[in-house]
């Protein structure tokens, strides 16, 4: 019994350590700072002005998805903006598109999915969410077109503001994205080693062996061990946690020396994570990779722009928003990853394989149902999906699960139904479930070798029919309202 509990704990700790060491740093750390920059530096008016009531549909739907990916990194924006678009702005359709696209396309979810599971799945999640987000929006607008037409036609002043993104802010965001990409992309230019340094630090190789003993792992099950480099990174991460608490908590009032120490540690961590450390007998072999050059250059650029291109207040707000996201999401993620490691020990691969090992309708449905009824904190869906993948789940049902889980949870359904009413909310849920299943099937078919062109053709035809139907209905409504106007006169 004690043996069993110990095995569970080891599973949890091992999963956590492997995650913190390998994936989290080079992708999540920059991603948090990008999310912070988006929240603090992009004026909301730059996107919301395209979401007013008088905006034509071919602009408002893409703008709604853009708002979903750029503005909506946290619920502070998602719910008010959703209600605003629905009640005072472009209407139910774009509001639904926004709501659907936001959790799948924000920078944190995309970066994490790409690094932990694979860029192909991140890309599938993005493009299929975009297509289906707009699709569901159009369908909802079609079904409830009468309610939408009943809304007042006055363009609300909340959508009238016009501010655009400053050029230095745009550059700043681009460099941050470059930092993320140069740390995570697996292309030769970045992963090749261009030089090496040998440091006479003995003992690291035995340290690494000891780590393998403490955190046993099985590569066959998709588990990863903790290397000496990983252990160093976890140490650095803990230091960042402490110094960030001292330095960022009151950043909006003033920065202090802890702020600078913490930022220095973040930079150091990113640099250490981007080289390759090989502990050898009697010394440490460091490979200078292309990643190191890329990350280093990006860091210098970020410092230069932050120092000369942005106002002090903007930098403070950027750091505060980033820190707020880290504080809000990271602890839950750590607990979640630990729990996934524990549960991993209890699930037999055969169960998953029989249920969703192949790309069937039933398998995809199973993924969706699991996603709807389980509620996990933001981003925890990714390690869970990784666990399913290593247990033998097909990538199709996996995508179905990844689409359904963040979109639908009991909590979000309740909030949405408070705003748009129960009937509309449950109709939305039904469409999301259907479309997630469809997305899984399509992606699964592509993984199994169906040609991409045919799939795209089907998708395009489907979207075309939908928009045509919507166009016709809206014309009929317009005609009707014109008739009633005439009758009144």
């Amino acid at each position, binding site marked *: 019994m004690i043996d069993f509990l110990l095995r569970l704990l080891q599973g949890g700790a091992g999963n956590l350590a492997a995650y913190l060491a390998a994936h989290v740093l080079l992708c999540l750390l920059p991603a948090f700072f990008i999310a912070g920059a988006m929240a603090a530096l992009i004026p909301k008016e730059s996107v919301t002005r395209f979401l007013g009531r008088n905006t034509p549909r071919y602009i408002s739907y893409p703008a709604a998805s853009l708002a979903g990916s750029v503005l909506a990194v946290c619920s502070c924006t998602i*719910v008010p903006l959703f209600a605003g678009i629905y009640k005072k702005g472009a209407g139910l359709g774009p509001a639904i598109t926004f709501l659907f696209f936001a959790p799948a396309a924000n920078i944190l979810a995309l970066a994490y999915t790409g690094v932990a599971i694979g860029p192909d799945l991140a890309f599938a999640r993005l493009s299929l969410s975009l297509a289906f987000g707009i699709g569901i929006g159009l369908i909802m607008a079609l079904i409830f077109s009468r309610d939408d037409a009943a809304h007042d036609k006055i363009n609300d002043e909340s959508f009238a503001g016009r501010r655009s993104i400053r050029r230095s802010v745009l550059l700043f965001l681009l460099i941050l994205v470059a930092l993320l990409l140069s740390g995570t992309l697996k292309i030769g230019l970045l992963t090749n080693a261009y030089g090496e340094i040998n440091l006479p630090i003995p003992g690291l190789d035995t340290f690494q062996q000891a780590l393998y003993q403490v955190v046993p792992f099985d590569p066959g099950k998709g588990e990863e061990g903790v290397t000496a480099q990983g252990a160093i990174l976890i140490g650095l991460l803990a230091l960042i946690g402490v110094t960030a608490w001292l330095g960022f908590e009151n950043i909006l009032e003033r920065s202090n020396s802890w702020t600078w120490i913490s930022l220095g540690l973040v930079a150091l961590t990113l640099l250490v994570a981007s080289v390759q450390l090989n502990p050898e007998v009697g010394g440490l072999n460091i490979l200078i990779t292309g990643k190191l050059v890329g990350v280093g250059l990006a860091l210098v650029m970020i410092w230069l722009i932050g120092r000369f291109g942005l106002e002090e207040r903007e930098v403070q707000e950027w750091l505060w928003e980033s820190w707020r996201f880290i504080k809000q999401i990271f602890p839950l993620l750590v607990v979640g990853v630990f729990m996934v490691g524990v549960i991993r020990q209890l699930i037999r691969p055969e169960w998953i394989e029989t249920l969703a090992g192949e790309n069937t309708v039933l398998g995809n449905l199973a993924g969706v149902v699991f996603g709807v009824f389980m509620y996990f904190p933001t981003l925890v869906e990714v390690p869970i999906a990784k666990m399913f993948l290593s247990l033998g789940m097909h990538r199709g049902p996996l995508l179905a699960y990844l689409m359904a889980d963040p979109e639908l949870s009991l909590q979000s359904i309740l909030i949405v139904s408070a705003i748009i009413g129960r009937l509309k909310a449950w109709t939305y849920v039904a469409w999301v479930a259907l479309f997630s299943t469809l997305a899984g099937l399509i992606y699964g078919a592509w993984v199994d070798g169906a040609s991409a062109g045919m799939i795209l053709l089907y998708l395009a035809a489907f979207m075309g029919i939908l928009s045509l139907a919507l166009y016709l209905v809206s014309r009929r409504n317009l005609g009707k309202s014109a008739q009633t106007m005439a009758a009144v006169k």
Partner: protein
Amino acid sequence: MLTIKVLGSGCANCKRLEQLANKAVMEMGMQAEVVKVTDYNDIMQYPILSTPGLVINEKLVCSGRIPTQAEVTIWLVNAEMEAV
């Protein structure tokens, strides 16, 4: 007397804004009541697209960001002058 409303469902930024409003009121030595509005239907009565929002005497002065204390003080003084 001023009525100050802090709009927000309880996220970190909303709590921060509430502290800030209380502090500004204290330092000005004003007669004011700070109310937290957490219900989304009540929040949406104001023209706001993201929380936190700050309302002084039923007028929305700021939304979607945390203002500085100096800004809050100016808004408070303006509202006081208008009320007289």
